[in-house]
């Protein structure tokens, strides 16, 4: 019983109107989508546009599966909270992919690209913030 209570309590932790579990699921989504992008890039070098090459390209197939799982988890996460909290989290995937590209694929990064990533992350967050629902109090939560 006690364990059940604790589980219930964890489920009920909220940040504003957003459940903690939704925030954690959103972080999981960013990990999955970043992994999928990495697998796409890994697989693309061997990809030619014939059917055998496409159905035997395991990094791309694995990437697509991971992406689909990530999309499913994201839909669940979006049910548990406000996009104003969840969009800024999903926007971190742009940062993760840049770091992975720099380390794994030796892609050149520079000040312009980093500032572009930062600006995009702010932009996606603002769209999330701008989508907040109005409360009964008339203001925004």
């Amino acid at each position: 019983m006690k364990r059940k209570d604790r589980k219930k309590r964890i489920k009920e932790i909220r940040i504003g109107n957003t459940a903690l579990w939704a925030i954690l699921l959103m972080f999981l989504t960013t990990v999955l989508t970043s992994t999928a992008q990495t697998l796409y890039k890994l697989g693309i070098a061997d990809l030619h546009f014939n059917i055998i090459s496409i159905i035997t390209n395991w990094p791309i197939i694995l990437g697509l599966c991971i992406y689909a799982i990530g999309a499913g988890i994201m839909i669940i996460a979006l049910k548990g909270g406000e996009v104003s909290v969840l969009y800024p989290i999903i926007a971190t995937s742009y940062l993760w992919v840049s770091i992975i590209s720099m380390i794994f694929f030796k892609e050149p990064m520079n000040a312009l690209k980093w500032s572009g990533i930062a600006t995009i992350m702010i932009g996606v967050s603002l769209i999330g913030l701008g989508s907040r629902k109005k409360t009964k109090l008339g203001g925004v939560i």
Partner: protein
Amino acid sequence: MTTQLWAIGVVLLAAMIGGFGPIFLKKATATLHRNLRSIIFNFNLWAGIAIYAVSTVMFFPALKAGDLSVLYPMVATGYAWVSIYSMKMLNEKMSMLKWIGIAAIIVGVTLIGFGSQLG
């Protein structure tokens, strides 16, 4: 590798098309119930999924001609399109914050575009 400009163009186009995905999925949720029939015959659901598939497939040839760190952030323009389509097709309200967000994404993508050509 210096990212080819056509690859950037293809990803921007893919994001513009992909932005319709969530709109159709949102429309689909109105008639979606927990029975197989409402899933199989849900036009909006399949349209949404097909749009996602098309934009993903478009991404692949582009990825062959460019850096992941340049092309993946371009996908963020999809958020801007979703906001605009939601306003036009779902009659959702736009807000000042959303417009500023859209502007920021455009600035960010432009910065990355210039940055990618520096090598």
